[in-house]
């Protein structure tokens, strides 16, 4: 990337912001610049990065062991009554709500990220192959996807979890399966569109086989869609994980998980103890908001045509 190029594409501030980027010459000019100038992407990205940091540093940040029960300090309110020992109060077993929220970040982000990875692997393979090859493969696989789409998301996830039982791996499988059909549909559309393009035809004329074409020509061009949809899905996925946890179908107790925390907090809410359920919900909202903003911002930058 020459400085001149980025100046032309990115405006007068481009030079200053782009200079450190010279080390990575293969990035398309102006992409980072546009991302950094996009307030949505920047805010959302910061929130997501913040929570990723919390997930990694949870043991260092948490004031207490998230599983430790302080039976002499059950349901004590937090900072708002001047209690600095338990800033967000304690739950019905005297466990520190803040520490559980911090550790809960690990569960939600882990399930979310792995489930979305599963969705990407399955959705991209199904979508690209059906779109590119067409024929009976397309007919069969897409009918299966249509059937999966005819279940409301959460109902399908509930059904799968009810059958498989609690657990991180099962939650990943359930949420991965639920998300796959939408990804497959998107990728099928992209593959259908790209396979008619001249550069794909040129590759075919040069003797490239389907695997090579899909890997080197179709997939890279489909990446913006994958990235944007993954970020947006992650937001929703965080909500699904919480919903499953709330219904008692998420990870097994006593692992701290936000949805399950809200569920157990429900029983003491009626007694006026609002903090064990209120704070996990605020956290879920923040994380989801972060992913949605990041997804929206990424879409504006990477793929303006996808805008609703």
């Amino acid at each position, binding site marked *: 990337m020459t400085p001149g190029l980025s100046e032309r594409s990115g405006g007068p501030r481009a030079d200053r912001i782009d200079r450190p980027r010279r080390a990575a010459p293969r990035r398309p000019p102006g992409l980072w610049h546009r991302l950094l100038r996009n307030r949505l992407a920047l805010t959302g990205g910061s929130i997501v990065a913040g929570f990723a940091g919390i997930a990694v540093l949870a043991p260092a940040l948490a004031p207490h062991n998230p599983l430790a029960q302080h039976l002499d300090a059950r349901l004590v309110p937090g900072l708002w009554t001047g209690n600095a020992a338990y800033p967000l109060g304690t739950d019905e077993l005297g466990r520190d709500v803040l520490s559980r929220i911090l550790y809960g970040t690990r569960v939600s982000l882990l399930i979310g990220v792995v489930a979305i990875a599963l969705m990407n692997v399955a959705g991209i393979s199904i979508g690209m192959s059906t779109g590119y090859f067409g024929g009976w493969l397309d007919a069969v696989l897409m*009918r299966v996807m249509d*059937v999966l789409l005819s*279940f409301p998301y*959460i109902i399908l996830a509930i059904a799968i979890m009810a059958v498989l039982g609690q657990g991180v791996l099962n939650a990943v499988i359930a949420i991965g399966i639920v998300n796959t059909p939408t990804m497959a549909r998107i990728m099928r559309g992209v593959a259908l569109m790209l396979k008619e393009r001249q550069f794909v035809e040129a590759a075919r004329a040069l003797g490239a086989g389907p695997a090579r074409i899909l890997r080197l020509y179709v997939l890279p061009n489909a990446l913006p869609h994958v990235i944007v949809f993954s970020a947006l899905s992650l937001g929703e996925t965080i909500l699904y994980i919480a919903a499953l946890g709330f219904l008692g179908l998420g990870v097994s107790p006593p692992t701290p998980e936000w949805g399950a925390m*809200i569920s157990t907090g429900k029983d003491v809410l009626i007694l006026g103890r609002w903090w064990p359920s209120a704070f996990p919900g605020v956290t879920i909202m923040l994380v989801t908001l972060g992913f*949605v*903003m990041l997804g929206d911002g990424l879409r504006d930058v990477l793929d303006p045509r996808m805008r609703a």
Partner: protein
Amino acid sequence: MARYVLFRILAIVPTLLGVAVVVFVLIRLIPGDPAQVMLGGFATPERAAALRRDLGLDRPLPIQFGIWLGGLARGELGRSIISQRAVAEDIWQRFPATLELTLCAQAFAVAAGVTLGIVSATTHNSRWDLGATALSVLGMSMPTFWFGLMLLYVFGVWLKVLPISGRLDVGVHLVRITGLALVDSLVQRNWAALGDALAHLVLPAFSLAVIPLAMLSRFTRTGMLEVLRQDYIAVARAKGLRGRAVLWRHALRNALIPLVTVAGTRFGAQLAGAVLVEVVYAWPGVGRLIFDAIEKRDYPVIQGTVLFIAVLFVFINLATDLVYAALDPRIRYR
């Protein structure tokens, strides 16, 4: 149009069959012996064998599927292994409660969401617009059940102005006709029951309405902004029509068509969202039925209710498509 309708209706037959296969296969995926799992601590080899025979689990899969499908055709969804009641009957008893909750939530979401969207679009980039957009983004990022709990706390526990669980207070009597408490109390002119039913409905319906409300306001805003930029709006303005006439007669009508799809598909999803809200408010609907069945590992009930909601979802999507085609002629000719 007739051809499109026929095609669309025929197209759901394989979908419904597929849904039945998925639900059937799912229940067979229970790790280990389903009979053992269902019986839990009460399992003895004889009991497990008897349950397997009852459920038809000792026969080949295709035959099991055939028997099950035959039962479905007669409206049979199996029997609860806990209460021994027919699942179809349980659903029938409880569905009106879910329907009432979902319909009220949806009606409120459409009315409020569209209004908010119009206000946003007409005051584009103002403080109002910013506020409405922020609210809708927040609404979409919120876990429904958590929002429900917080409302429950504020209005039911703290301010004590609204009831926090169930559909009617214990002392209130209402003869069941349709099962929809609002309709039944209206028909019987039982005003005390009507007031009580309304009071019980407010919080759950509002909680359930938040997500579709947020979505509809966002879509209305985008749709209106797009339509307001069109040439024919400029022409209408140039003809000297008043702002309000342009807005209502020209812009809104066209902006609303795509909303039918959003509202329709959301309505289906609402039935699923009701599961969570029903758990929060102990609302005696189908969602609560699933939740209790999950806790008790009552697989026939889970299977039956999941199938019921999925089939309903398919039909709602069909209805949405047909309404959309009726409103927008371009669809039919594609």
